[in-house]
């Protein structure tokens, strides 16, 4: 199923970059004490590509990438394969993973408090990455750290070097984390909600910066965000997760114009409008199923307005609906046309 995720449009990439995927995840599952929270994920990330990952809170967006980087606690059981340029990362030695993390693959974490050490000055935290992964030392560390802080728009970069995280605002700490992630000159940057604490103007600057770095260095960007606007403006391809599965993947323009999966449709309908009349927001009815009590069929079935009897017994596979688009829904491409009878036969076929 590795072909499912597709690759970035060739036009967006310099010709020299191979079309071979940089990072490949196959059949990834994660269990926490016997409860499966990631239930089989396949995806590929090509050099220079930008993938946006959206999905319900608790759907496994963060855990997928923590698993890929070997960052989950011991209580987690990971299976499947994660390959970086052909090298298997699952089960790799801790020392080896340590070298890769922060270097070839960097991650910006969702919780600033778990990523920045409160008792170490921020300049030293960035400096450690520069020393480890860039081999810099002494005054060149300070100069490079200052350059990175300026790059992410941290005001008064020179002086901030000696600040502790608590002396910075939420958004300033978030930019320190982005600078730290970029310090290792990664091939893949996994950014988990990197701009939630930033105002719209700085958010736009940071997203532009990530896109520029991507274009200039061929860094691949995996952007996890609940803000559909953010991924829409930054990413070429969108992956929608629900209940530990990928339920839809499509190029950015088409998914927002015509979402195929009923969950994606619900997600877009719940978005507060920025123009036009105010109305009460329309949440998706019901709650996300708990991993321990996941329905046997389609994970979205208990909340789906288009549910049919068959949905409750079969997990719909991610199937191509049209070129470059995949949706895991039994109602399939005909959701707009509402032809459940015809669909049932196609499931049986």
């Amino acid at each position, binding site marked *: 199923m590795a072909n499912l995720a597709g690759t970035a449009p060739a036009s967006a990439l310099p010709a020299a970059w191979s079309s071979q995927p940089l990072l490949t995840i196959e059949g990834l599952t994660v269990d926490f004490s016997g409860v499966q929270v990631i239930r089989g994920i396949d995806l590929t990330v090509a050099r220079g590509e930008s993938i946006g990952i959206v999905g*319900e809170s608790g759907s496994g967006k963060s855990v997928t990438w923590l698993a890929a980087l070997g960052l989950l606690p011991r209580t987690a059981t990971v299976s499947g394969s994660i390959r970086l340029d052909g090298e298997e990362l699952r089960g790799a030695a801790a020392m080896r993973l340590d070298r890769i993390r922060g270097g070839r693959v960097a991650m910006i974490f969702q919780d*600033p408090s778990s990523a920045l050490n409160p008792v170490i000055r921020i300049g030293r935290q960035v400096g450690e990455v520069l020393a480890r992964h860039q081999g810099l030392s002494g005054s060149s560390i300070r100069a490079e750290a200052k350059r990175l802080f300026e790059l992410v728009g941290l005001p008064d970069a020179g002086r901030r070097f000696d600040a502790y995280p608590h002396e910075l605002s939420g958004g300033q700490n978030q930019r320190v984390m982005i600078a730290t992630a970029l310090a290792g000159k990664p091939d893949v940057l996994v950014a988990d909600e990197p701009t939630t604490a*930033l105002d719209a103007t700085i958010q736009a600057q940071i997203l532009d910066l990530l896109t520029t770095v991507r274009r200039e260095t061929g860094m691949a960007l995996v952007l996890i965000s609940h803000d559909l606007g953010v991924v829409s403006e930054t990413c070429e391809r969108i992956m929608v997760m629900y209940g530990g599965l990928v339920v839809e993947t499509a190029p950015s323009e088409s998914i927002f114009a015509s979402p195929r999966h009923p969950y994606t449709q619900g997600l877009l309908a719940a978005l507060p409008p920025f123009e036009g009349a105010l109305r009460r927001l329309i949440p998706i009815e019901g709650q996300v199923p708990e991993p321990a009590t996941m329905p046997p069929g389609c994970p979205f079935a208990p909340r789906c307005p288009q549910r049919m009897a068959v949905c409750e017994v079969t997990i719909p596979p991610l199937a191509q609906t049209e070129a470059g688009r995949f949706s895991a829904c039994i109602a399939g491409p005909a959701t707009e046309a509402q032809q459940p009878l015809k669909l049932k036969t196609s499931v049986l076929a």
Partner: protein
Amino acid sequence: MTASILDLHGISRSYSTRQGLFGKKVPVHAVDEVSLSLKEGQTLALVGESGSGKSTTGRIALGLERPNSGYVLFRGTELPAADTPAWRRMRAQMQMIYQDPLAALDRRLSIIDQVREPLDIHDIGSASKRNNKALAMLDAVGLNASHATSLPYQLSGGQRQRAVLARALIMQPALLVCDEPVSALDVSIQAQVVNVLMDLQKELRLSLLFISHDLKVVRQVSQRMAVMYLGRIVEFGETHLLLSSPTHPYTKALVSAVPVAGRRTRERIILKGEPPNPAARPTGCAFHPRCAIARPECVRVSPTFSTLPDGRSVACHAVHTNPPTKEVGS
């Protein structure tokens, strides 16, 4: 006329930071002469540049931090000094929800214990009643019994934020200061939490000081909003007016940069120039190094507020001298 529940009068707060171990101390003016008022049962949104002093203002509003000058009135009474019995009594009616949900929760306690904790501390009701109340509150924010028994790290980011919200609401406060309360939530849960907040506001006449970067949510929840830039308020007025026809050049840039899913309909204004530095505040109008329509006086003279016919206040020289009905800049 609705009475105001919270009034900030010319509050300022500065911190000192030093460069290097032996460097000299430099003051950082985090909040500078900010005045605001929040009407009972309403929502006032505080938006603006990251680092412009919104969280500091929120902490000062609750008396968690003292302003260097200015004062805060809660229902017309000045806030007592922090950690005095009088302050603690008043504090029970005011709650805060912080930006970072993981830092706000105790890592070793189950969610239900933490949500029930304020009731335990204030000894409200019997033990079983407290538990039921905590469960009901969790249910109201969309968390179930199995979430209740989880530890914070076992929940996703969005689930944690709802736990924090439940804990803040369980004492039925009159005033809730929310610092980025829905930024960690995905949109469908965000819609639930926003609806919950608005329903509770109606039912309990809850007043909200709502700090947020998400202008789409701000549009949904607030009647009035204040835009901050480098410690000062630059525009203040009815939310729908500020969002549909922003007047201050910073507000314009901010509104234009709101990311939209699908095709964007308006041109994004990209701000140029140095990011603002509170330790070296530009002279005159602090926005002048990045303002496309700055004029000579902007470098020298700090603009004062002028009131437009639609009731909003704007601190900008260009607005002063233009007929207020005309759009400023381009």
